[in-house]
C-alpha cells in the first residue's frame, strides 16, 4: 500500500494502482474516455489529466500513471478543467452533431462529458469526417465519423476476445478504426467492441432506432443459452426485450458476452411463439383452452411406468424438481431423463465415481488463477465462448501455459505459445490414459495419490496404454504426449477443461474419469486454480443433474425411452422443451419413436418439428418471463426474475407441472421460492441457499469430494476407410442447442449447417468453399454447404448440429466418430 494525497484527502492505494484507480477506490471521480478497467492502460484521450505536485504541476494522465509514495494530486483545478474542456472541443471539432439520430445518445460518454463540462461552443473550426458508414453488417454498424479513436474496441477484441478484427488503420488525421484492408467485418460477433465503445461509432444493428436508452427498463437476468451462466441486463420497453445492455460490473465475466447472449435475445418476443395450447383433433392441431389441454394430458399421465419424459436442461431448477416430483410421485414412473441420456454422463457417472460428486471440482474463476490449462477439444471455445475469454486472458495476461488435446485445431490453438496435440478423432481417452501412465511410470505423481482408493489397480490397468502404442493409435508423437504429461505434472496448479453436450457423444463418463485420474494423480484438485471443469452444455445442465432429473434406479434413460416408444413399452411421452428430432442422434429412429408412441405431449416456446408431431402442445415461457434459479456449469446457483409479462395464454413450465400435479390429486408447491426451499434442504451443497439470499449475486454450491481412481475404458479407434472422412459432430460458435435458431442475431451470421473439411480432402474431392456437398453415412445422407478450413486435419470433417433446416442427426447415429463420404 502507498500513501498519497488526492484533492487534499489522505488516501492509500495498492502499489500496482494507477492514479485513476486510487482516486476511484477513494470515491474521487476522474473523468475518462479511453480507459476501461478490463483493459490495459492506454492513455489516448487525455480526459483524465490531473496535476501532480512533485511533477512541477505538469498535467499527466491519471489512467496510465502509477501511484508513488507521497504523491500529491489535484484532480480538478481550474487549469485542469480548462485542459479537459479543450480536449472535448478538439474531439467535437470533427464529431458530427448526430445526437438526435444516434442510438448511443443518453448512454454516450462524449455526450455526458460535453454536458458536464458545459462545452457549448468551439474555438476551432474544421471539417467533419466523411468516412463511409457500414450499414451492411447484420449485427454491428460501424460509423467511424463518430469515432474518438479511444482504441477500446481494438483493444478488447485483442486483449479479451483475442480475435483481432479491428485495428487503427491509416495515419494522422485519416486514422480510423477498421478491419484488415478496410474490409467488411467478419468476426465472432461477440459485440464486446460495441459494449465498450464510448460513443456511437459501433452500434448493435438489430437494435437500430428501436428505442432510446433512457426509455428502456433494465432487468438483470441470467443468460438462457449455455452453461457458463453469464449475467445479462435486458433492455425492455413496452413489454418487449429490445436489446441487451452492457454492465461492466456484472458477473464474474464483467459484462462480457458472446454472440448468443448479446444478439440472440429475439426468440423471447418472436412472433413465431406459441400463444395458446394446441390439441390434435382429426389429425390437425387446433387451439384449445388450458383446462381442456391439461385434462387430456392428466388423463394420459395415469399410465404409471407407461409414461416417460424428456426435458431440456433449459428449465429452471424448480421446474425440473417439480417435473421429477410429478413423474415419480403422481404419475409413478422412473422413466425420465435430459440431455439425450448421455451428455450428462461425465457428471452423473464419471465425476460421481471419480470424485464422489456429480459436479466439477473447479470453477470458472479458477481458470485465471491456474498456471497450466489442459483443454480437451478446441470446441470448448465454441460451446462456452465466455469461458474462452477467461482462457484468453489467463494465457495472455497471466502467462498461464495452455495445452490442447483435440481432434482439430481451433481458435484456442492460436493463443501465444499454445500447444495443440491434434489426435485422431475418438482417441482422447487413450491419450489421457497414456498421460496417466507416464505420470505413474516417471514417478511424477503427487505423494497424496497413493492413499486414494484404486491407486494400485490403476497402475496395472494402464499397462496397455504405453506412450508409443497410444501415439501410433492416436496419430500423435510419443514425445509430445510425454511433454504434455511432464508439463501437467510439473504445474503447481493444473486445470483440465472439457466440453460435454448432446453433440459430443464421445465425451463420456470415461473421458471424465480419465481426466479426473490425472488431477488425482498430481494432486491438482480441491485447491484454487486446480481441478477438472466439465463445461456442460446448457444454461441449467448442472442444475438438471443436481435436481436428479436423469434415469436412476432402473428408470429408462433418454435413448432407451425412445426405443421403448418404438416397441410399445412407453405409451405416453412428455417432452418438455426438447427437440429430439434435431438434437438427439439418429433422426430416423427418433422420428419412428415419436410416430409410434401413442400419446405425445410437448411443452415448448415454438412449434418445433417435434411439437408439430404432438397430440397436445403446451405454450410455455422463456427465461425472461419466469422466475427461478439456474445452476451454471461450475455450480453457481443464480436467481432471476421475470423481465417481461408473459402472454395471456402462456404458462410457465412450473405452472404446467403444478396444474398436472393437482389434476392427478397431488399437492403442488405454492411457488418456485417455496419449492426451492425444499430443494435447498435436500440437495448436497445447496444448504442455506434461498431465493432471497441469491437475489443479488448468486452463490456457489459447495462441492465435497471423495476421490477414487477408476480405470476408464478407451474406445477402439475407428479404422480409417479409403475414401471416407471421420466426421465429428459439435457445436458452432454462434449457436447453442436448437434454441438459438429462433434468435435472429445468431441466424444472421450462421443460418444453416455446414461441413468443414481439410484443404487436402477438399482438393481431392474438388470441393470449394460453399459448394453444396452430399454427405452420406451408414444411417443416411444429407446435403450441406462445405467449408474448407485450415484447422481440420486431413481425413477428418466437422459438422455442427443445431439446425432443423439441415439436421446432421440424419447422418449421425450417436457415435463419437462417423465415417462418411463427402461428394459434390
Amino acid at each position: 500500500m502507498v500513501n498519497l494525497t488526492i484533492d487534499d484527502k489522505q488516501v492509500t492505494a495498492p502499489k500496482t494502482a494507477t492514479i485513476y484507480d486510487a482516486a476511484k477506490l477513494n470515491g474521487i471521480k476522474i473523468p475518462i474516455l479511453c480507459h476501461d478497467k478490463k483493459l490495459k492502460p492506454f492513455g489516448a484521450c487525455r480526459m483524465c489529466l490531473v496535476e501532480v505536485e512533485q511533477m512541477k504541476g505538469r498535467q499527466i494522465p491519471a489512467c496510465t500513471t502509477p501511484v508513488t509514495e507521497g504523491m500529491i494530486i489535484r484532480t480538478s483545478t481550474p487549469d485542469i478543467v480548462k485542459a479537459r474542456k479543450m480536449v472535448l472541443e478538439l474531439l467535437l471539432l470533427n464529431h458530427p452533431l448526430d445526437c438526435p439520430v444516434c442510438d448511443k445518445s443518453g448512454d454516450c460518454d462524449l455526450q455526458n462529458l460535453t454536458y458536464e463540462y458545459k462545452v457549448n461552443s468551439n474555438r476551432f473550426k474544421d471539417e467533419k469526417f466523411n468516412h463511409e458508414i457500414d450499414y451492411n453488417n447484420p449485427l454491428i454498424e460501424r460509423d467511424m465519423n463518430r469515432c474518438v479513436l479511444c482504441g477500446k474496441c481494438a483493444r478488447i477484441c485483442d486483449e479479451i476476445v483475442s480475435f483481432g478484427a479491428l485495428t487503427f488503420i491509416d495515419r494522422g488525421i485519416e486514422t480510423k478504426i477498421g478491419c484488415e484492408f478496410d474490409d467488411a467485418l467478419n468476426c465472432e460477433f461477440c459485440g464486446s467492441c460495441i459494449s465498450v465503445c464510448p460513443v456511437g461509432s459501433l452500434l448493435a444493428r438489430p437494435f437500430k432506432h428501436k428505442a432510446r436508452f433512457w426509455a428502456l427498463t433494465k432487468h438483470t437476468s441470467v443468460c438462457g443459452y449455455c452453461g457458463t451462466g453469464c449475467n445479462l441486463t435486458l433492455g425492455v420497453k413496452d413489454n418487449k426485450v429490445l436489446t441487451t445492455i452492457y454492465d461492466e460490473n456484472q458477473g464474474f465475466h464483467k459484462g462480457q458476452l458472446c454472440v448468443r447472449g448479446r444478439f440472440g435475445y429475439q426468440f423471447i418476443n418472436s412472433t413465431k411463439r406459441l400463444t395458446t395450447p394446441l390439441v390434435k383433433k382429426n389429425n390437425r392441431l387446433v387451439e384449445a383452452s388450458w383446462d381442456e389441454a391439461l385434462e387430456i394430458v392428466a388423463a394420459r399421465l395415469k399410465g404409471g411406468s407407461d409414461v416417460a419424459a424428456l426435458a431440456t436442461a433449459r428449465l429452471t431448477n424448480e421446474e425440473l424438481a417439480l417435473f421429477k416430483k410429478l413423474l415419480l410421485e403422481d404419475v409413478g414412473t422412473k422413466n425420465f431423463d435430459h440431455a439425450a441420456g448421455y451428455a450428462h454422463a461425465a457428471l452423473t457417472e464419471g465425476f460421481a465415481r471419480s470424485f464422489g460428486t456429480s459436479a466439477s471440482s473447479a470453477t470458472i474463476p479458477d481458470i485465471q488463477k491456474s498456471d497450466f490449462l489442459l483443454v480437451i477439444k478446441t470446441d470448448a471455445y465454441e460451446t462456452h465462448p465466455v469461458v474462452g475469454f477467461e482462457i484468453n486472458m489467463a494465457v495472455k495476461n497471466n502467462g498461464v501455459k495452455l495445452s490442447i488435446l483435440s481432434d482439430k485445431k481451433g481458435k484456442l490453438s492460436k493463443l501465444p505459445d499454445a500447444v495443440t496435440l491434434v489426435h485422431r478423432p475418438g482417441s482422447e481417452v487413450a491419450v489421457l490414459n497414456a498421460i496417466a501412465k507416464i505420470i505413474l511410470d516417471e514417478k511424477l505423481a503427487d505423494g497424496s495419490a497413493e492413499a486414494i482408493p484404486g491407486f494400485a489397480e490403476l497402475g496395472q490397468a494402464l499397462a496397455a496404454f504405453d506412450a508409443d502404442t497410444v501415439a501410433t493409435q492416436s496419430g500423435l508423437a510419443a514425445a509430445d504426449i510425454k511433454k504434455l504429461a511432464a508439463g501437467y505434472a510439473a504445474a503447481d496448479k493444473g486445470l483440465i477443461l472439457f466440453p460435454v453436450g448432446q453433440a459430443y457423444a464421445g465425451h463420456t463418463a470415461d473421458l471424465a474419469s480419465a481426466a479426473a485420474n490425472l488431477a488425482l494423480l498430481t494432486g491438482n484438485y480441491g485447491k484454487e486454480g486446480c481441478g477438472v471443469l466439465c463445461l456442460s452444455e446448457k444454461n441449467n445442465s448442472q442444475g438438471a443433474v443436481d435436481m436428479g432429473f436423469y434415469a436412476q434406479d432402473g428408470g429408462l434413460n433418454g435413448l432407451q425411452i425412445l426405443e421403448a416408444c418404438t416397441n410399445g413399452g412407453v405409451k405416453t411421452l412428455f417432452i418438455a422443451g426438447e427437440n429430439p428430432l434435431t438434437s438427439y442422434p439418429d433422426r430416423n429412429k427418433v422420428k419412428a419413436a415419436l410416430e409410434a408412441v401413442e400419446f405425445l405431449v410437448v411443452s415448448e416456446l415454438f412449434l418445433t418439428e417435434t411439437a408439430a408431431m404432438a397430440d397436445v402442445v403446451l405454450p410455455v415461457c422463456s427465461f425472461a418471463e419466469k422466475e427461478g434459479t439456474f445452476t451454471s456449469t461450475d455450480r453457481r446457483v443464480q436467481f432471476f426474475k421475470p423481465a417481461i409479462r408473459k402472454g395471456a395464454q402462456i404458462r410457465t413450465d412450473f405452472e404446467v407441472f403444478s396444474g398436472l400435479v393437482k389434476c392427478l390429486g397431488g399437492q403442488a408447491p405454492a411457488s418456485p421460492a417455496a419449492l426451492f426451499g425444499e430443494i435447498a434442504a435436500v440437495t448436497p451443497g445447496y444448504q442455506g441457499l434461498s431465493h432471497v439470499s441469491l437475489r443479488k449475486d448468486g452463490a456457489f454450491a459447495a462441492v465435497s469430494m471423495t476421490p477414487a481412481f477408476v480405470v476408464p475404458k478407451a474406445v477402439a479407434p475407428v479404422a480409417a476407410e479409403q475414401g471416407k472422412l471421420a466426421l465429428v459432430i459439435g457445436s458452432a460458435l454462434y449457436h447453442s442447442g436448437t434454441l438459438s435458431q429462433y434468435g435472429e442475431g445468431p441466424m444472421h451470421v450462421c443460418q444453416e449447417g455446414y461441413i468443414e473439411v481439410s484443404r487436402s480432402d477438399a482438393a481431392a474431392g474438388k470441393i470449394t468453399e460453399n459448394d453444396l456437398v452430399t454427405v452420406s453415412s451408414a444411417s443416411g445422407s444429407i446435403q450441406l454447404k462445405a467449408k474448407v478450413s485450415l484447422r481440420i486435419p486431413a481425413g477428418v470433417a466437422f459438422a455442427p448440429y443445431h439446425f432443423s433446416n439441415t439436421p446432421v442427426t440424419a447422418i449421425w447415429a450417436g457415435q463419437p466418430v462417423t465415417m462418411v463420404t463427402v461428394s459434390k
Partner: protein
Amino acid sequence: MNPITPIINGMAITFKHMFLKPVTLQYPTERPKVAARFRGLHALNVSHDKAKCVACYLCPTVCPAKCITVEAGEDANHDKFATVYEIDMLRCIFCGYCVEACPVDAVRMTGEFELANYDRKDFIYSKERLLEKK
C-alpha cells in the same frame, strides 16, 4: 346616501354602454385575433418535402402529459425518421415543452384552437394530420 342613487348610477353605466363598442366576440361569425405566441394545435414542420422530425424521442421524453407517441424507422438512405408520430390532444396540456425540446425545429404550435370533435379517437392526431398544417 339616498337609497335610489346607486340604482340611478347603475342605470347610467348601462345606458352609456349602449353606445360603446361591445367586448363580446360574435363567434363563430367573428374570429378572435390569435397571438403569434399562442399555443394551439401542433404542426410538424416540413423541409425538402419531408417532415423535419428525426424521431429523436426528446418531445415524448419531455412531455409532462405523456401524450406523444414516436416510433423511429430507417429510410432507404439509412436516415432516421418517425414512422409514427402521434399526439393525443385529449391529454395535451399545451405547455409547449415539446416545441422547446426539439433539437431540429420539427414541431411547432399553431393558432388552431378549435379542437372539438365528436369521437374520442379523432383527438389522436396522426403524423399525416399534423403534417397537413403547412
